[in-house]
């Protein structure tokens, strides 16, 4: 079992999020289990990576934590309070220090609002500061993210994508958050620009004493930046542990196939003997027991019976496979 971690800044306990599947007559024909019984903790000061392919639930995880989707079950404990099921405006006080950045930073800014107004908004919502006090905080944050003051009078479409990203960051930093969920922060960026953004995140982390949940499909970036990583498949966490441990010694067959799919320049080409076949099963109609068993090379009948729990086979390194102890 995973030991209870009372020093965790954020803790998810048995969080599930099911979306109803409706047929043409709006009758529910099944459930899409985007998140299923997810339990994990985020420790203060760490960068926890959440990786997986499309449909694995990592985006839903971010949004459920933020309260955009109310969870179907489970507890979300942030700074000691259970915020599960409370919509953001109702739980304003409790959620103030929990913030989120968007994959498309330009889209997250209201196109008809000047940037200055967008930057004031979080403070207007959460605090009782006067305009002058808010302006001062905004100026401090502008310095921290490296944006010129003139930008306050511009509209989002008048600045570049990189600057929009900084504005998005600035906006949440005005509230002095303790935990920031980063949703695909480097997706779509050129490799040479990626480094600048990653360095910015790391600088801000140390300047503002932040903790990050880093949701990404880019495993090489996750390896560089994250302290621990959670691998998700079809709504469940299948492996969780320190980044180096998981990357150099993956225990779950899915993690192994995922890592072996990453091209490694200079090494053997994966196209020569990549073995994972087929596609993930229909998420509305999941296989019984272990969800990966339909594509797993070592699946047996046992795998179809019960859902393998996430077990900590080595200190700090858990996986959800019945046969991981047997070795690679």
């Amino acid at each position, binding site marked *: 079992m995973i030991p209870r971690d009372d020093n965790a800044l954020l803790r998810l306990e048995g969080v599930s999020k099911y979306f109803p599947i409706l047929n043409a007559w709006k009758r529910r024909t099944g459930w899409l289990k985007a998140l299923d019984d997810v339990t994990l903790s985020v420790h203060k000061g760490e960068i926890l990576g959440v990786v997986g392919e499309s449909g694995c639930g990592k985006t839903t995880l971010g949004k459920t934590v*933020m*309260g*955009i989707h109310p969870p179907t079950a489970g507890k979300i404990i942030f700074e000691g309070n259970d915020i599960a099921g409370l*919509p*953001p*405006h109702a*739980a*304003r006080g409790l*959620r*103030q220090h929990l*913030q*989120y950045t*968007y994959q*498309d930073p330009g*889209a*997250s*800014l*209201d*196109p*008809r609002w000047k940037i200055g107004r967008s930057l004031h*908004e*979080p403070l207007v*919502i*959460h605090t009782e500061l006067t305009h002058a006090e808010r302006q001062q905080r905004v100026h401090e944050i502008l310095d921290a993210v490296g944006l010129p003051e003139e930008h306050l009078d511009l*509209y989002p*479409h*008048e600045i570049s994508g990189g600057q929009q990203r900084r504005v998005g960051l600035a*906006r*949440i930093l005005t509230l002095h958050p303790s935990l920031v969920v980063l949703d695909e922060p480097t997706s779509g960026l050129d490799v040479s620009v990626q480094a600048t953004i990653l360095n910015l995140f790391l600088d801000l982390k140390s300047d503002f004493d932040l903790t990050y949940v880093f949701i990404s499909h880019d495993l090489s970036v996750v390896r560089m930046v994250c302290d621990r990583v959670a691998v998700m498949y079809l709504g469940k966490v299948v492996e969780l542990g320190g980044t180096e441990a998981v990357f150099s010694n993956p225990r779950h067959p899915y993690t192994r196939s995922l890592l072996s799919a990453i091209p490694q320049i200079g090494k053997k080409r994966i196209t020569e003997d990549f073995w994972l076949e087929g596609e993930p099963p229909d998420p509305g109609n999941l296989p019984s027991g272990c969800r990966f068993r339909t594509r797993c090379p070592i699946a047996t009948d046992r795998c179809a019976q019960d859902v393998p729990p996430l077990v900590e086979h080595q200190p700090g390194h858990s996986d959800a496979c019945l046969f991981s102890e047997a070795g690679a």
Partner: protein
Amino acid sequence: METARFLLRKLASDRTAAVGALLILLLIVIAIAAPVLATHPEDVFEFHPSERLQGPSAAHFFGTDRMGSDIYSRLLFGARITIAIAVIAVGVSVLVGVPIGLVAGYYRNWVSDALMRVSDIFLAVPQIVLAIAIAQTLGPSIENVILALSATYWPFWARLVYAESRSALNETYVEASIALGASPWRVMVLHVLPNISSAVIVRTTIGMGGTILTAAALGFLGLGPPAPSPEWGRTIAESREFLPEAWWYATAPGLAIFLVVMGFNLLGDGLRDILDPRIRRSRDD
């Protein structure tokens, strides 16, 4: 305000919209300056039976009607009634329909269903029939015309705003605002409403044209303000028995209605081109 200046510049370059805007401007000027522009302002109330049914002349630009009153002057004063009906009826519809649409758009529960069902019910009532019913019970007047029109018109705005706000709610920046903890009020009024405003503006402009047409129809049927009101539809009704000899009697108000409705439609079309999505992309020229 810079948006207004931007709009004016764009209007000037789009010919159809410019024509529409000019027609509307003309209508407003006429309505305001009617006492000054009219050659026989007293003819709104007075009549001169000896001069009845005279053709267009230098003294009477559009001729005289069956009571001998100057049609041109009565037309100008009729413009005031037309504007009043259009502005108030549409104004009430917007003020009622938009908030209902916003509330229905935000919530995804029985509230939204109920509101939309209510608006469906009102939509199903034919305007003319309701106007007749109201006129029968409460008597024909301007106020009752406005009442009948507003009661049946607000659902158009409710549905439009409902549909637009539902799609706006899927936008990332709205979600971002919600995630930041914005209250439903803030989300709908400060974020969604400004971003759907162009659709509402276009609908309102075109709605004015339709309202005027319907008001004229009600006037024609005798459900509007009673004699001796110079309302345009009533004037056309009066002219019926004197056609085709007194052709000027129906032509003048008919042409006036046509030009006004045309003006609103052109302006609305032009605004649609100008406002959507260009204004979002290039605020600077």
